[in-house]
C-alpha cells in the first residue's frame, strides 16, 4: 500500500485569545493572556474565580435561532471553527466528493452545559420532563455529528474522548485516514465548553486548578515556574483541514505544514498522575513515526499544564527523549487548558510558529524551578528564528498521550 503524505491546508480557531489564527498567534507572541476573573452568577461558590472563555460569542451570528437552540455551546464552537477551516483551505465543498471527507473531533466533556441544565431542571426545579433535545445536545458525538451535517460530509465521523489529549489523538488518527487512503481530506481537531458550575466544581475537587494571582488574575497559570499552582480551565475549538499532499499541491493550496509523525500510548500507571516513562514513550513513538531524530526538532509545544507534577514530569521526559537544547513553551499560560480542544489549539500554535518563523513564549514564568531546567522561551516570544520541525505534546487523565510532529513543506 502506498503511504500518502498529509498536508495541513486550513485552520479554524475560536480561543480565549482570539477567534482567528492571526489574532490568536499575535496575542500569544505578545504574551497576552485570555485568563480572567469569571463573571458567572455562580462565581462566589468557586475557590478560584478564574477561567479562559470566548468573550462575546453570539450563536445567532452563526446560526438561525432554532438551530442554535438545538446545539450545545461546544457544538456551536466546533461548527464555527470547522467552517472557518474549510474557508481558509479554500475548499469548495459543493464541488468536492464529500464521501472522501471525514470529521475526527476530540472533546473531553462534550455537551456539559446541556446535561447540567437538564439536571438542574430535574433535581432543583423538580421538572417532570426535560427538553426534547437534551440527549442530542449532550451526547459526546454531537459536535462531530453537527459538523458533518452542517457541511454535508459523508466520510467517517468519529469522536475521540481521551480527556486532555482528545484532539491531538483526533488529528493523529485523521492523519492516518489520509495516509492509508481511506479518505482524501479530513476535518480534525477538538472543541470544549465546560465552564459550567458543576464541571468547574468537579475540577476544583481534584485540586489541580490554579489559585488566582491576587495582583494579576491573567497571570494565574504559570507553567514551569516555581510558584505555579495548577491549571486554568478554558473553552474553545480548533479545527484543521488535513489533505492528501499530492492533491493539495495539485490544487495550489496553501500548505501550512506536513504532518510527519504521530505517537499515542497509554501510561498504564495512574489515572491522574503523569508518568515520565509514558510521556517519553509517546514522544519516541511520534519521532519513530516521523523517521527523524530529536535534534531535528526546532520547537516543542509542551502539554505544560502548570500543575506541580505535570511540569516536572514532562521536563524529565523531554530531557530523556530530546535532550535539553530544544526550546519548549507552554501556551496554556495564556489560553488556559482547553481540555478536549487543547491539543488542537496548541497544534495551531505550532502551525503558526512554522508560518511566522516565531516561537510563542511561556508567559508568567518568573520564578525558576530547579526541577524545570529547559529553555521554556520565558515571557518573551522569539521572532526571526528558524522553525522547520515542531512537536506538540498532549497528555491526559486516563493516561492516553497524543504527540504530533509537523514540518514546514
Amino acid at each position, binding site marked *: 500500500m502506498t503511504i500518502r503524505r498529509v498536508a495541513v491546508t486550513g485552520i479554524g480557531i475560536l480561543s480565549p485569545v482570539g477567534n482567528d489564527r492571526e489574532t490568536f498567534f499575535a496575542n500569544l507572541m505578545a504574551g497576552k493572556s485570555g485568563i480572567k476573573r469569571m463573571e458567572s452568577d455562580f462565581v462566589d461558590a468557586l475557590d478560584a474565580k478564574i477561567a479562559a472563555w470566548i468573550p462575546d460569542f453570539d450563536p445567532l451570528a452563526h446560526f438561525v435561532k*432554532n438551530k442554535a437552540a438545538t446545539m450545545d455551546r461546544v457544538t456551536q464552537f466546533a461548527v464555527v471553527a470547522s467552517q472557518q477551516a474549510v474557508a481558509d483551505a479554500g475548499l469548495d465543498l459543493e464541488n468536492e466528493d464529500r464521501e472522501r471527507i471525514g470529521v475526527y473531533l476530540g472533546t473531553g466533556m462534550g455537551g456539559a452545559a446541556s446535561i447540567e441544565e437538564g439536571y438542574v431542571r430535574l433535581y432543583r426545579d423538580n421538572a417532570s420532563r426535560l427538553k426534547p433535545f437534551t440527549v442530542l445536545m449532550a451526547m459526546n458525538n454531537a459536535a462531530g455529528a453537527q459538523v458533518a451535517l452542517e457541511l454535508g460530509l459523508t466520510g467517517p465521523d468519529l469522536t475521540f474522548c481521551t480527556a486532555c489529549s482528545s484532539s491531538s489523538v483526533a488529528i493523529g488518527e485523521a492523519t492516518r485516514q489520509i495516509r492509508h487512503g481511506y479518505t482524501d481530506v479530513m476535518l480534525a481537531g477538538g472543541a470544549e465548553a465546560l465552564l459550567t458550575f458543576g464541571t468547574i466544581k468537579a475540577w476544583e475537587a481534584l485540586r489541580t486548578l490554579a489559585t488566582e494571582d491576587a495582583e494579576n488574575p491573567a497571570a494565574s497559570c504559570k507553567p514551569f515556574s516555581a510558584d505555579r499552582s495548577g491549571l486554568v480551565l478554558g473553552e474553545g475549538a480548533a479545527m484543521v483541514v488535513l489533505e492528501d499532499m499530492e492533491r493539495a499541491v495539485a490544487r495550489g493550496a496553501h500548505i501550512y505544514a506536513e504532518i510527519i509523525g504521530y505517537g499515542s500510548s497509554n501510561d498504564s500507571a495512574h489515572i491522574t498522575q503523569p508518568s515520565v516513562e509514558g510521556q517519553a514513550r509517546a514522544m519516541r513513538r511520534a519521532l519513530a513515526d516521523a523517521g527523524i531524530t530529536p535534534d531535528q526538532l526546532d520547537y516543542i509545544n509542551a502539554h505544560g499544564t502548570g500543575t506541580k507534577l505535570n511540569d516536572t514530569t514532562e521536563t524529565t521526559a523531554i530531557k530523556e527523549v530530546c535532550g535539553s537544547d530544544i526550546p519548549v513553551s507552554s501556551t496554556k499560560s495564556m489560553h488556559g487548558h482547553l481540555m478536549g480542544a487543547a491539543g488542537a489549539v496548541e497544534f495551531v500554535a505550532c502551525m503558526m510558529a512554522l508560518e511566522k518563523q516565531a516561537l510563542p513564549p511561556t508567559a508568567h514564568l518568573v520564578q525558576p524551578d530547579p526541577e524545570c531546567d529547559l529553555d521554556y522561551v520565558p515571557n518573551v516570544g522569539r521572532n526571526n528564528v528558524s522553525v522547520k520541525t515542531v512537536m506538540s505534546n498532549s497528555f491526559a487523565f486516563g493516561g492516553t498521550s497524543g504527540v504530533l510532529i509537523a514540518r514546514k513543506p
Partner: protein
Amino acid sequence: MDTFETLRDIIANKFEKTADEITPDSTFESLEIDSLDTFDIIFEAEEKFGIKVPNEEVSIKTVQDVVVLIDRLRTEQGK
C-alpha cells in the same frame, strides 16, 4: 389568548416565523418543522398550559391537531 394563538406564538418565536404564516390548517411539514421539532413545541406547550402529553398522543400533522390535543388534555387534566 386562546390555545391557537398561544401555540402560534410558541411556533413563531421558536422558528422565526411571522404570525400570519401560521394558520390552524398549516401542516408542520409545510412549515418545515420536522417530528423532532414538534416534540420541542409540545414540550413548551406542556409548560405553558401545565399539562402532560402522553407519548402515544404525539401523532400530529397540523397546528390544529395540537390545538385539539391541548384543549382535550386541559379539560381531562383540569388545567
